[in-house]
């Protein structure tokens, strides 16, 4: 039998589509939250449980440029994963599988996640002061 026969001959031929991008970014945002998000949450809680000085060290990082970029990225990851997750829960019921609905719902996920991220950070940076 042909051992070198490709099993999935068209696997390397693909284009970006909004519905496949939603699937990839569901995984990417989930892993950003699982590692960067979880470690920041643990640092925040452990610092608060340790001492005011340890908490100041955490705040120093959170207010640095790197910290702010991470927090904004994690906010987007949270909203992207949350909106995409709701889409997946609806699809788990067997609904929304026609190509037109798949594309529309994926587009909404990206739009709503971006909008919520902008709203939250506009509130933090403009409304309350950093």
């Amino acid at each position: 039998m042909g051992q070198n026969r490709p099993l999935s001959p068209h696997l390397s031929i693909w284009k970006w589509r909004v519905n496949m991008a939603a699937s990839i970014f569901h995984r990417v945002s989930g892993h950003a939250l699982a590692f960067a998000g979880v470690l920041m949450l643990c640092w925040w809680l452990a610092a608060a449980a340790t001492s005011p000085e340890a908490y100041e060290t955490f705040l120093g990082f959170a207010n640095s440029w790197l910290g702010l970029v991470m927090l904004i990225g994690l906010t987007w990851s949270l909203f992207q994963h949350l909106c995409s997750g709701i889409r997946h829960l609806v699809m788990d019921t067997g609904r929304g599988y026609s190509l037109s609905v798949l594309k529309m719902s994926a587009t909404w996920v990206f739009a709503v996640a971006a909008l919520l991220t902008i709203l939250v950070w506009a509130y933090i940076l403009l409304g309350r002061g950093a």
Partner: protein
Amino acid sequence: MASRFTSGTGLKKVRGLGSAKSGVHHWWLQRVTAVGNFVLALWFLVSLLLLPALDYATVISWIAQPLVAVPLALLVISVFWHFRLGVQVMIEDYVHDGGLRTLSLIALTFYTVLTAATALFAIVKIALGA
């Protein structure tokens, strides 16, 4: 209501386990924790945004309240359980070498238990200590 999905083979139905040998247990827990995460993460984010400041004294007195410490601990359990399941699927999808896959899954379990214990201990210490 009958499922919109038809089952592939009768044998799968009889055995009820599928290729992962554990049936839909993993899949179902991922959905249950997803719903928990939805409620708890939104509560957490909105609560943080509504706090007057995020300095040490404000955060400590906020977490010390029973109606904050308990949902915060539940958030850690639900979110960390959810990411443990999600990262496991990523490892099973992309790490093909048997030994490396087993090591990765063990490392993931250690990472989950270590971070969960840190976060939960911090919450309990703040809630009981003050």
